[in-house]
């Protein structure tokens, strides 16, 4: 699904990612953990195609295709989805019309006709019910005045609508109370299949009780310094990151 080889990326000549290697196969859930400033969100943004970052070395392959030269929208058309840590407020664009535009533009890129309005409404109804989203919410301006939890739930709603192959959840748990965390995690779990993959970026092990990872990676100073199974997350929760820093001599 996703293969990242020796990825180096920088912003304004400041190196952030310093040689990431990561392979994610269909059906897998990977967790990426690490302290603040270790490069987790940068990795997510670089894979999703944020242009402010410059890839200086290495490659990102999606289903064998190098996507490094593609714009963010083309990556989205190929099935990459990023759940933002800080979803952007866009006054004047309703959630529904945003989704309608996103879905139809993606269909257009694939040479398909617009989705019939009836099907669109049905899909919106199903997915919003799954995430226990109030219908009124869907006619509001995108993320404007949403609480932290509402923004994150809205991100997962978009994921459900777009049905990506590779979903990257960047700190989706932050700002969520325990009930919202359960709803969001249930949603993600329902969307999981043997054909798609999820990368969960988080500070805390808490989310990983709900979305159980197959692999856990520790990102430190722009490199993956340790990989393991879900037990590694428990160990990090109990002991923090210092022991890893010592272990790898960072």
């Amino acid at each position, binding site marked *: 699904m996703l293969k990242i080889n020796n990825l180096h990326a920088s912003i304004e000549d400041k190196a952030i990612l310093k040689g990431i290697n990561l392979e994610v196969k269909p059906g897998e859930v990977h967790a990426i953990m690490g302290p603040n400033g270790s490069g987790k969100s940068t990795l997510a*943004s670089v894979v*999703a*195609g*944020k*242009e*402010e970052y410059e890839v200086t070395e290495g490659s990102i392959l999606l289903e064998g295709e190098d996507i490094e030269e593609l*714009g*963010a*929208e083309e*990556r*989205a*058309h190929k099935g*990459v*989805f*990023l759940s*933002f840590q800080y*979803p*952007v407020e*866009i*006054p*004047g*664009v*309703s959630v529904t*019309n*945003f989704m309608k*535009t*996103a*879905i*139809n*533009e*993606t269909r257009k*890129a694939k040479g398909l006709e617009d989705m019939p309005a009836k099907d669109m409404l049905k899909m919106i109804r199903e997915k919003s019910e799954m995430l226990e989203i109030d219908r009124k919410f869907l006619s509001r*301006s995108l993320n404007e005045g949403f609480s932290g939890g509402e923004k994150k739930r809205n991100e997962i709603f*978009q994921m459900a609508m*777009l049905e990506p192959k590779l979903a990257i959840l960047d700190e989706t748990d932050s700002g969520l109370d325990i009930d919202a965390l359960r709803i969001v995690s249930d949603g993600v779990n329902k969307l999981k299949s043997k054909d798609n993959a999820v990368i969960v970026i988080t500070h805390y092990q808490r989310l990983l009780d709900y979305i159980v990872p197959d692999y856990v990676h520790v990102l430190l100073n722009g490199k993956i310094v340790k990989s393991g199974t879900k037990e590694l997350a428990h160990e990090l929760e109990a002991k923090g990151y210092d022991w890893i820093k010592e272990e790898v001599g960072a």
Partner: protein
Amino acid sequence: MELKEKLVSSFMAFEDTVDVNSTIHDIRTEAIKTFEAEGFPSKRLEDWKYTSLNSVLKHDYSVFPKSENDIEFKDIKPYFSHDIDAYKIIFIDGKYASHLSQTTHDGLDVCLMSAALTKPKYKVIIDNYFNKIASKNGISSLNTAFSYEGAYINIPKNKVVDKPIQIIHFSTGNEAAVMLQPRNLIIVNENAHVQIIERHQSLTDNPVLTNSVTEIFANKRAIVDYYKIQNDRQNASLIDSTFINQKQESLAKVHTFALGGKLVRNNLEFYQNGERIDSTMKGITIIGDKQHVDHNTLVHHIEPNCESHQDYKGIFDDKATGVFNGKVVVEKLAQKTNAFQANNNILLSDKASINTKPQLEIFADDVKCSHGCTIGQLDESAMFYLRSRGIPEKEAKALLMFAFSNTVLDSVKIPELKDRITKIIAEKLGVSIGFDL
């Protein structure tokens, strides 16, 4: 000969063709003297500091356009909001085109300025209203001097007009260059409601300069909803001056969609002569190339307990230049005034520019007046967010621009007109998607 001299020397010939004995002969004569003394406005005037007329005054405009034309409906159909059932007052090169119009005298007057200015039965109205609030400055005086044709609309007391009124001025380009001086008079009597759509449209790329003056009287509790569509061709320029006198509890709204033309100058002035008046002016400007749009607004709060709202959005690309100069005067008597003004702009290119200047003159002490202006670029993080959902760059830009303009589009009360403006904007932005936001 300079345009000014040409106009001044044409005046007598003009008056000869209309009616020297008409009641407004003295007004016209006075006006041409004012124009002769003041001439066209120059950048030395504070109000014209950022707009130079030099580039539009250099053409040898024909002052008396030929009246023959063979324009048929099919030629101009795209410029009508033809899906709107409306009264229509259509002018071609300044002359009334009866075959394209639909006027009425049935319960309301939707007809011609030339009739109102010459027929005895309108004399009292003309004496009471004509040139009573239009500015006496040089440029408006020029229009007054040549005032002859335009729309005359009179809505009687308690009449709610059943459909909008469209006023469209076409210029055919049959001549190398033409200057037009349309003059409109609109009287909305007590408790009457009316919606008006005004458009100036050139049909060729020959230079056109339109110097339009509109006087609107909104009497007690009247509601006036006025829309200006300015989406003209590259060589068409417009100086549009609109003066609105409001009586108590009246509500007047003017939307200006400045989406094209070479140079557009909007002078929009509201005078509040009564209590609990609401004046609203909103605008969207989207221009590129070397286009220039200047919005010069004035709200004169004279009496207590009134409101005014201004909301102007501007998007400027290439080497386009914009001006917003919003003046709010609150007289000493006008306590409890609530005046709000916002001007927000997006510059899409390093070479585009906007000069925005709020100007508040407040002489009362118990008022709420706020103003704000912003100039920025499209939000990069919002662009990435939209693109990451599969919306291509061009469409994402357009979506953000629509969202930015939405507070203005949203208050367009004629759905077909809103659709039409949305389409014009989408075309300008090069996208096919209609965002029903």
